């Protein structure tokens, strides 16, 4: 027989528990409030002092020179207040994360203490309602004070007549998502654990071990399957699926909402059945413990295994790996067991997952190491290929959110003629010539991927891709980037026969595929220069949009030898090839050089995409603290085309917008005329 409590009564009970928790967290909240108030005041004071002082002072230059950028605004005080907004919001953001952890640990400790279990277990409130009330307390204790201080920051900013900057606004979303996901995840872990210490250790282990393990898996995929596409690992979900702290990045909001909902539902389901007597025992539910122990064992095992493998311990990379993996994973598993179980009890019985892990990892790594499927050395015979495609990243534009793998797969149908296919297969052969696929190199490649490549988050690291549509209909792709297997040289990999074709240009260059907003600048070069940049007016963008459109029309209609138009592109390929990622502007040929070679040349049309995102100091702060490394989001790229006299539409458009005079020289009286200094 059961009695029921009305919904209104339940709400009243939940409110009582919330207020009770509020009282117990008053001291902690006071510390948060003091720190947030003091830091906000310090930042505001410093910003204003620097701002006012710098208005008539050279310190202004010093202040901004530290960011290596030129501020957009001439109003120094306004810039300082905007800087204050972002910096103070970031401090509040960081403090909130730290205190969210403290509140959460405190609030959920009622599950981990026998005396508290007696108190809360005998209270006339349902277990689920109690848990939900406690979770709500943790959310609100975290968010309300944060919102209060962010509100103050915004009010102060508005008093100085400054609108709220996006970075500061984004912090609301980040805090909301991060708090929701982290507290929900910790709540679930708390329900499963018997002690607060185990809960905290398990939460940290999940947050740290999961992303690092994913990085190792990605490293192995990259290192052992040279040419495979691992762009999937750039996905926030893959790298952080089980790391609730990643929700503070404020992306993948739908996923984190689902993640939080699943955690809350699972917690509610488990807390109803949780035995109160498990308070102060190791665990109430053991599954998460087994998962974390295996995860930690995997991580430490991989670290030592890959290290020993790359150092060629035992004279063989693979044997070194096996030795290192066992040497790392077994002690890590045992130590994790000792921490969680407070002793050796049940060690043998719970070691079956460790045995399984060792067997699986050793077997999988053997398959990878000995390239059982011949992945690394696969190059098709030209006769087996129906059509093929090659993409050279130096002459390749794509939208940042486009699917590289899909683009590469689609490129398999670009060239069906035998000459082109032979050329692509030949370039592929040259690329793999003399590559050392020994064990230790493969393990070194894992480190390279983890330590070097992972720093370039979001950057398209591809250098060359090959795609083949085989006669049997299969599509085979390989995507190569620089690695420990060696850099590529344009001397050995000849791609110009493919890249400097009409098909390739129309399909893969920015001039033909970039949207107007993605073009950072268009520059017309002859004996002098003119151009517009993305931050210029709408009119300028519209004007240069017309020029690009006209150029596309001319190029498509051009049935003559397009090598003239693409001559600068070919030169750029040679320049860039050995120095991927580094701009070689200074060494480009000038217009006069081309004019000697092609007397019909009127001007150079330069299309730039990508930009350095550090246009103001606030972005720098956001990136450093937020850790998003947005500098790599869109690296600058340049395409240059030689405009011959036959490109009448392009020349007319340039004249129409006033860049060219009637004699095809640069109009120095044009609004778009700019000196060299502005651009370089």
């Amino acid at each position, binding site marked *: 027989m059961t009695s029921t409590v009305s919904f209104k009564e339940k709400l009243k009970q939940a409110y*009582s528990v919330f207020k*009770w928790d509020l009282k117990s967290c008053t001291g902690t909240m006071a510390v948060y409030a003091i720190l947030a108030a003091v830091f906000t005041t310090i930042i505001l004071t410093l910003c204003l002092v620097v701002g006012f002082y710098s208005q008539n002072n050279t310190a202004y230059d010093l202040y901004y020179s530290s960011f290596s950028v030129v501020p957009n605004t001439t109003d120094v005080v306004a810039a300082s207040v905007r800087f204050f907004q972002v910096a103070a919001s970031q401090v509040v953001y960081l403090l909130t994360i730290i205190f969210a952890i403290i509140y959460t640990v405190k609030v959920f400790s009622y599950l981990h203490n026998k005396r508290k279990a*007696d108190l809360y*277990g005998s209270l006339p*409130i349902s277990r689920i309602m109690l848990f939900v009330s406690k979770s709500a307390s943790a959310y609100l204790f975290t968010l309300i004070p944060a919102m209060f201080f962010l509100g103050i920051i915004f009010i102060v900013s508005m008093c100085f007549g400054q609108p709220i900057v996006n970075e500061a606004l984004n912090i609301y979303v980040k805090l909301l998502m991060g708090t929701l996901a982290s507290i929900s995840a910790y709540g679930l872990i708390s329900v499963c654990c018997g002690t607060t210490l185990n809960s905290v250790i398990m939460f940290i282990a999940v947050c740290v071990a999961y992303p690092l393990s994913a990085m190792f898996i990605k490293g192995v995929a990259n290192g052992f399957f040279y040419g495979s596409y691992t762009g999937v690992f750039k996905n926030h979900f893959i790298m952080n699926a089980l790391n609730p702290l990643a929700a503070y990045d404020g992306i993948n909001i739908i996923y984190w909402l689902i993640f939080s909902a699943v955690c809350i539902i699972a917690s509610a389901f488990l807390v109803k059945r949780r035995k109160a007597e498990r308070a102060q025992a190791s665990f109430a539910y053991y599954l998460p413990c087994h998962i974390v122990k295996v995860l930690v064992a995997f991580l430490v095992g991989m670290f030592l295994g890959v290290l020993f493998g790359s150092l060629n311990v035992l004279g063989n990379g693979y044997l070194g790996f096996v030795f290192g993996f066992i040497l790392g994973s077994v002690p890590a598993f045992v130590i994790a067991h000792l921490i969680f179980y407070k002793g050796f009890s049940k060690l043998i019985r719970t070691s079956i997952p460790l045995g399984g892990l060792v067997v699986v990892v050793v077997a999988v790594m053997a398959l990878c190491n000995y390239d059982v499927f011949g992945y690394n050395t696969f190059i098709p015979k030209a006769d087996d290929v129906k059509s093929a495609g090659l993409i050279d990243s130096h002459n390749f534009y794509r939208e940042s959110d486009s699917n590289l793998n899909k683009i590469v797969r689609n490129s398999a149908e670009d060239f069906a003629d035998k000459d082109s296919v032979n050329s692509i297969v030949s370039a592929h052969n040259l690329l793999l010539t003399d590559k050392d696929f020994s064990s230790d190199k493969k393990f070194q490649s894992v480190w390279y991927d983890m330590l070097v490549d992972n720093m370039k988050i979001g950057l398209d690291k591809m250098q060359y891709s090959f795609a083949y549509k085989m006669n049997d209909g299969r599509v085979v792709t390989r995507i190569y980037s620089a690695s420990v297997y060696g850099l590529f040289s344009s001397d050995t990999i000849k791609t110009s026969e493919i890249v400097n074709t009409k098909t390739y240009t129309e399909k893969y260059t920015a001039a033909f595929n970039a949207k107007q907003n993605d073009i950072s600048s268009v520059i017309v070069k002859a004996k002098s220069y003119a151009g517009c940049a993305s931050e210029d007016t709408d009119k300028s963008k519209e004007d240069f949009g017309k020029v690009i459109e006209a150029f596309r029309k001319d190029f498509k209609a051009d049935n003559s030898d397009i090598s003239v138009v693409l001559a600068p592109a070919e030169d750029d390929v040679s320049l860039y090839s050995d120095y991927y990622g580094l701009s070689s502007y200074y060494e480009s040929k000038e217009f006069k050089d081309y004019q000697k070679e092609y007397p019909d040349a009127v001007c150079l049309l330069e299309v730039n995409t990508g930009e350095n995102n550090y246009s103001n100091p606030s972005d720098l702060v956001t990136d450093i603290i937020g850790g998003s490394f947005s500098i790599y989001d869109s690296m600058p790229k340049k395409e240059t085309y030689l405009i011959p006299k036959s490109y009448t539409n392009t020349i007319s458009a340039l004249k129409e917008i006033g860049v060219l005079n009637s004699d095809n020289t640069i109009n120095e009286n044009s609004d778009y005329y700019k000196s060299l200094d502005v651009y370089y």
Partner: protein
Amino acid sequence: MIELKNLTKRFHKVTAVDNMNLTISEGSVVGLVGSNGSGKSTLLRLLSGVYQPDGGEVLVGGKKLFDNPAAKGECYFIPDFPFFYNNSTINSTAFLYRNLYPNWSEEQFNRFCSVFPIKRDAKIINMSKGMQRQAALILALSTCPKYLFLDEIFDGLDPVVRHLLKKIIIEQVSEHNMTVIIASHNLRELEDLCDRICLMHKGKMLMERDIDSLRLCFRKVQVAFSEIPLVPNIFEGIDVVNVWQNGNVFNVTIRGTEEDFMPQLNALNPAYISAMPLTLEEIFISEMGAAGYDVNSIL
């Protein structure tokens, strides 16, 4: 009414409460006594809905208690070590209980705050053990529970407060028909307060009886003989709980009244014989001794 039906609670391999059956009527004061680890506190936690039974069921007022807020609203449990947050005061804790317990009485709260000699705004955590128990009692009694479960409540209370507590409990039972279950090793206090006693050992109920009948059904008998009768078993036919012999003098604990055993003992021509009722502590020791839990068997 409280009913335990085949109630079982296990902690791994230990069965703390083993297939227990018990019925406690409304308005009784029941004392739970037993050896250490006999399952008294576990039973109270089962009764108050902290623990979920592994077998059988607990019905309090006809309702299952585990995760049943409405039923729990009529119960209050004071554990052996009540928990208070560091900054809790009686007033701040009352805020929580006021909204959770449907029978909370502000009048009772004010009354008990004035009756017990402690400050309602002082931090409970800084108080002595006895004062913390008084704080717990104030809060407990203010919820006007129909069922009150107390674990080692006399521990740490001074004699005056102990007396006060007993008085208040008796008052609440008589005025509000409150049912009280007290687990304690302080048998002297239970003797004054309880009308029934349950004796537990190793998770089982060894005995449960009205305290008056319990007192009546045990006698401590001293029998001295000038010459010990030459019979194989002197006390044959008498329900002897234990015997201690010193020369010709026998100290015997007998289950029964004088009418049951005096004729048989007198027939042995003792030089001296006296019988008197046992204290609860003596009954406890005797019964526990019979269950194999006495000083001799321990040592």
